């Protein structure tokens, strides 16, 4: 019998679009299509082998039809950038339950070039339209960022701690030819960049790009018979949680309950502790988010995240390599970055990353969505426990 956690379900195929960055010739649908084609080829499967489909940001029916898939299982869960973490978790449950055999999770977003994009608007009588937008809190940089000063203040930390996150991740991006921002940078240079929303300067905010990625999930049993079966990545554990769609209504401004709850379930279902993790992907739309995650997931204690990053622990050669593709801050960020965090975890566990972490066996992926609204956590491994 296939189990949801513990390695019964695997990622059998994973790929991004041929390019990420500025892709004005790619519509949203083309990005989904290219990512799906590449991931299926990676798995050695055809569209006709797929019976389950999940996506976010675009209607799942349209994506399925576009790809020539007739699904018997659909998941359109859309909770922002961590939707794909939830899709993987839901797919693992569906495969274990027999509701699907081969699930394709796709992401495509023309975040930079805006080709074939469904317009986004905040309804004036929605919660955000009534209680946040009138104050100018509409964009990610004027919403997601608002709690950060309190986080820093409560811990005796400063803007230099935000800048240190950028510095560490740029060292990874420097090693990744596909990264959007690659030039090494210092803390002082980060602080001297143009201000976007004090305390955030430009480089403390993610890049804005076009791109896509896709995953193929199936049972470990089925994957063993596939051409690339030896490259499978096991789903060991997972968790998901949500709090408020309004950043102003977080239960605690300087700690995110959904990070704590989703990650606790992921650690518990995987049967591991933070000390067992070799590699961490911590969704970084803005530089404060990985600091929240390091503390809320239990990798460090309250108030230790800044010094942990600043002293090199998350950079190349560090004890906890984090955001090794360069992250949303330097690699790519289409709008819903979660797919790219998962892709990098898979590359690391397959030993195929541009900036490879030696002997990485267990990777933890933490996603966030709808600003501090939702969270999805995944634990992957390249061997069974």
């Amino acid at each position, binding site marked *: 019998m296939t189990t949801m956690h513990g390695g019964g379900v695997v990622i059998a195929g994973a790929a991004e679009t041929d390019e990420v960055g500025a892709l004005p010739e790619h519509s949203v649908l083309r990005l989904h299509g290219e990512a799906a084609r590449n991931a299926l080829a990676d798995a050695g499967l055809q569209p006709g082998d797929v019976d389950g489909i999940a996506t976010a940001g675009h209607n799942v029916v349209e994506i399925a039809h576009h790809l020539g898939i007739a699904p018997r299982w659909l998941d359109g869960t859309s909770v922002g950038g961590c939707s794909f973490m939830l899709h993987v978790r839901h797919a693992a449950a569906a495969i274990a339950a027999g509701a699907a055999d081969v699930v394709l999770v796709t992401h495509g977003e023309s975040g930079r070039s805006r080709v074939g994009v469904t317009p986004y608007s905040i309804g*004036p*009588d929605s*919660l955000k*339209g*009534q*209680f*946040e937008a*009138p*104050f*100018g*809190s509409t*964009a990610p*940089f*004027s919403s997601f*960022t*608002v*709690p*950060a*000063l*309190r986080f820093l*203040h409560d811990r005796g930390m400063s803007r230099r701690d935000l800048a240190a996150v950028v510095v560490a991740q740029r060292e990874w991006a420097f090693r990744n030819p596909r990264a959007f921002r690659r030039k090494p940078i210092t803390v002082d240079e980060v602080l001297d960049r*143009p*201000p*976007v*929303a*004090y*305390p*955030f300067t430009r480089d403390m905010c993610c890049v804005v790009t076009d791109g896509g990625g896709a995953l193929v999930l199936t049972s470990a049993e089925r994957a063993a018979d596939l051409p690339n079966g030896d490259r499978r990545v096991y789903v060991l554990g997972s968790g998901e949680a949500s709090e408020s769609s*309004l*950043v*102003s*209504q977080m239960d605690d*401004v300087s700690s995110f309950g959904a990070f704590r709850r989703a990650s606790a379930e992921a650690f518990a279902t995987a049967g591991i502790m933070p000390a067992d993790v070799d590699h961490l992907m911590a969704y970084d739309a803005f530089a404060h988010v990985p600091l929240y995650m390091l503390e809320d997931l239990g990798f460090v204690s309250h108030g230790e995240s800044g010094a942990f990053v600043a002293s090199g622990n998350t950079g190349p050669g560090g004890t906890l390599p984090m955001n090794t593709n360069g992250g949303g801050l330097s690699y790519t960020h289409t709008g819903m970055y979660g797919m790219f965090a998962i892709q990098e975890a898979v590359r690391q566990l397959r030993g195929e990353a541009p900036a490879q972490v030696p002997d990485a066996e267990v990777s933890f992926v933490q996603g966030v969505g709808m600003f501090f609204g939702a969270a999805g956590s995944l634990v992957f491994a390249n061997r069974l426990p």
Partner: protein
Amino acid sequence: MPTPESAPFWAGTLRGELRLQQCDDCGRHYFYPRVSCRYCGSSRIQWRQVSGHGRLVSYIINHRQPDSAGRQPIIALVELDEGPRMMTNIVGVDADPDLLPLDARLTVEFEVRGDQAIPVFRLEGAAS
């Protein structure tokens, strides 16, 4: 733009009153407006005017979108003395972090925009 649930809140701001829902069962105030208590689920809730005093929890200074007068908006979280937290703007002070210490005491005032009045806050003791 109000909905039926939020209409009392926005009717209050037009009269210069900050109103919140309060639960008659657990006694707590909450925000944003709902049909039942956010904490205990009770339907025995009432709209009540609150003090309009609170403290500065956190903020950003929006350098990307200055207002029509060229000022950089201060987008802030205020925690009201009654407990709930709201998004707001800090007014009557330059957008200078040295003038905006966290936990500073704040007082509400109302800024008319179109046919609506929105609750904004001023540092206590700052001239209006």
